[in-house]
């Protein structure tokens, strides 16, 4: 009886820990994203190429890249496995990737701000699964144009 409880108890305990801390972490992450997005509003992002202006002689280009690796908690991963049975949208992963992209763009904007640039051109965003599905890497890169 005891060993049965232990063998069933562990996974459930892990799921519970994942559920509790995961929720807090996601909420904190969203709050942080909202705050940074407001703070960095003045930096403009363009995914078109820089066309050039008359003032080009005074402009310098700086390549920027920002990446992060995110993962979801065990509870959500468990839910995702259930979703696999019924089909439909993986809401947890949708949300994870959305937060990841926002975070990557915020990091890109922070780098531009530190340089003193207000525009980032030709932004590319991509994601890759790493560590055998443990995490998802989101990479954003672009070129900051700054007048000197």
């Amino acid at each position, binding site marked *: 009886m005891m060993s049965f409880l232990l063998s069933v108890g562990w996974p459930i305990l892990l799921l519970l820990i994942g559920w509790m801390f995961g929720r807090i*972490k996601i909420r904190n992450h969203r709050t942080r994203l909202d705050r940074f997005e407001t703070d960095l509003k003045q930096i403009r992002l363009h995914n078109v190429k*820089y066309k050039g202006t008359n003032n080009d002689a005074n402009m310098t280009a700086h390549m920027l890249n920002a*990446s992060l*690796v995110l993962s979801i908690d065990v509870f959500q991963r468990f839910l995702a496995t259930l979703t696999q049975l019924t089909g439909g949208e993986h809401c947890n992963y949708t949300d994870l990737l959305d937060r990841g992209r926002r*975070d990557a763009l915020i990091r890109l904007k922070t780098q531009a701000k530190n340089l003193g640039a207000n525009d980032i051109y030709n932004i590319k965003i991509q994601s890759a699964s790493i560590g055998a599905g443990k*995490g998802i890497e989101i990479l954003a890169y672009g070129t900051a144009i700054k007048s000197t």
Partner: protein
Amino acid sequence: MSDVILTNLEHIPGKQVTTHLGLVQGNTVRAKHIGRDIASSLKNIVGGELHAYTELLTDSRQQAVDRMVEAAEEMGANAVVNIRFSTSSVSAGASELYVYGTAVIVD
């Protein structure tokens, strides 16, 4: 710090591309050590950012860029334009970071 100008635009503002020297590339395949892998697995329970991985990939990508810049310098280029990154999983614990671009001479 190298003085090669890097950009993922096709030209550099305020500068004229005089010579195209061709494709330059840099890559690296990295795996992290087991200690960090275990730490990441624990982190995986609660989710959130896996800082060890973020750091590893950022460092590795910088290494790939450095290799590309080295190749460009060997060709006598002073800028690399139209840079692209790509990441792929080559085996369970390792990823390849690849970066490529066109080496050019600008003035």
